[in-house]
């Protein structure tokens, strides 16, 4: 294994739903790229629940810090993560109004997509829900995973709950190879459906300003559903 630090550039671009403030954005992203393996994760907190943004932040932070790289490892790590959410001072507060307390008891929900890149040119990914990994090579889309059909996105993706559930959600895993010069994108559902419907090949070059412009224009044209929109660019 190489001991050189990874020469991998990672940028997180995110725009909240139209009509929402930045602090209401319930997408989250985190990465650890100082040493191999490089780990990147995105999560999309469910609007219907409370403290979903907090849960999404905790999921990505813990995923890149702990070892949840396979479905089995993720299932094993989950109880401690849930515990941390349930014991968070904001969630436990006695001052919550009745409606927030009632919803907090039902837990928060989020999708999670994690990607691990190794120095030996392999990657592996784990997913719960409809965040999508896109692998671009030489200007074309090599692979989109776990979804590649823009029409297949629904209102009811698999979600990780912050409280224990009788049955665990569907966890998926994939792996592949990467080569220097490849781009990998992690996208939350609305961005994924939009890029799959149009063309993801320009996305690795966007910066924060051009991403915001592209999102606004695609929303106006009805190509992009009004949702929190996150794109993580990984340039190798």
């Amino acid at each position, binding site marked *: 294994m190489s001991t050189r630090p990874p020469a991998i550039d990672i940028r997180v671009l995110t725009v909240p739903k139209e009509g929402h403030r930045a602090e209401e954005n319930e997408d989250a992203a985190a990465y650890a790229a100082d040493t191999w393996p490089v780990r990147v994760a995105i999560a999309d907190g469910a609007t219907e629940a409370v403290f979903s943004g907090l849960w999404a932040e905790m999921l990505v932070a813990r995923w890149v810090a702990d070892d949840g790289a396979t479905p089995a490892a993720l299932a094993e790590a989950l109880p401690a993560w849930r515990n941390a959410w349930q014991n968070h001072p904001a969630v436990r507060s006695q001052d919550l109004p009745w409606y*927030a307390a009632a919803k907090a008891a039902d837990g928060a929900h989020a999708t999670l997509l994690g990607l691990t890149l190794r120095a030996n040119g392999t990657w592996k990914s784990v997913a719960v829900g409809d965040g999508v990994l896109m692998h671009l090579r030489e200007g074309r889309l090599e692979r989109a995973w776990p979804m590649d059909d823009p029409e297949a996105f629904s209102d009811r993706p698999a979600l990780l709950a912050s409280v224990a559930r009788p049955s665990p959600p569907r966890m998926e895993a994939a792996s592949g190879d990467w080569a220097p010069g490849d781009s990998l994108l992690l996208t939350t559902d609305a961005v994924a459906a939009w890029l799959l419907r149009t063309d993801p090949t320009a996305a690795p070059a966007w910066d924060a300003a051009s991403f915001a412009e592209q999102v606004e224009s695609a929303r106006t044209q009805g190509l992009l559903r009004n949702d929190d929109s996150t794109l993580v660019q990984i340039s190798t």
Partner: protein
Amino acid sequence: MPYSAEISRQQPTAFLFLLDQSASMQEAFGGAEEKGDAAPSKSRVLADTVNRLLQNLVLRCAKEEGVRDYFHVGVIGYGERVQPLVQPAEDFDTGTGLIPISHLAERPKRMEQRVKTVEDGAGGTQEQRVKMPVWFDPHAKNGTPMCQALDLGAQYVRDWIDRHPGSFPPVVLNVTDGEATDGEPLRYAQQLRSFATDDGEVLLFNVHLSESEEPAVAFPAHPDELPRNDEYAEVLFQMSSTLPFTMRSAAEQEGYTVDLDTRGFVFNADPVSLVKFLEIGTRPSNLR
């Protein structure tokens, strides 16, 4: 496609409840498990149902930082008087008789402690104490001025639509035991349903609470599905809007058989199917 407008704080939708508070609502509710003297009154069932439904609407809009105003809500009681039962505070006044749901959320009449049984995630159950908000108590007096209530409701939705022309149209839920004592309600219902936003006409749904112990009828498509000898059921059925596409699919997901003629109407509903009906009627599938 009509009935597809995105529901957001910039573009809220409205729920208006018309609640029968006439003397006949004191009679026993026929759809309850308990029969005879043990049966709850129709006015009790109405109050419980409306409290649960308002709670449900608030919870759909609740976030940790507060309640987002996706919905504006109005409640008109009709019995001894025809009057609004929720009042806007000055700083919340929308000028339409409807108030933002956050206002309602912050001001229940009282909170009651209930014990709820929930799954513990390990195959068992555990008891959880939950606070239930109460906005309304049972009330039953005098006649049934349903026509006046529909007329006042029409004023409310017309004013509201003037201010929200692009919104998902208001949903009006009339909860009654059936007999109007002040005229022919069908005409007033048709007038109410004729108001429209750019997204579609006002939806009027009727919930018929009856002392009859006949089985419940939910979402009928044709009058022959109604009990034959109840003239009020027929009128309330005729008054009810057909379910728009999104609500038909929600009803289907709940296991109901629906077609293009399926109406937002429940006859002789027991409390369970009543709440299911209302939840479908209020499911904001396009809530953002």
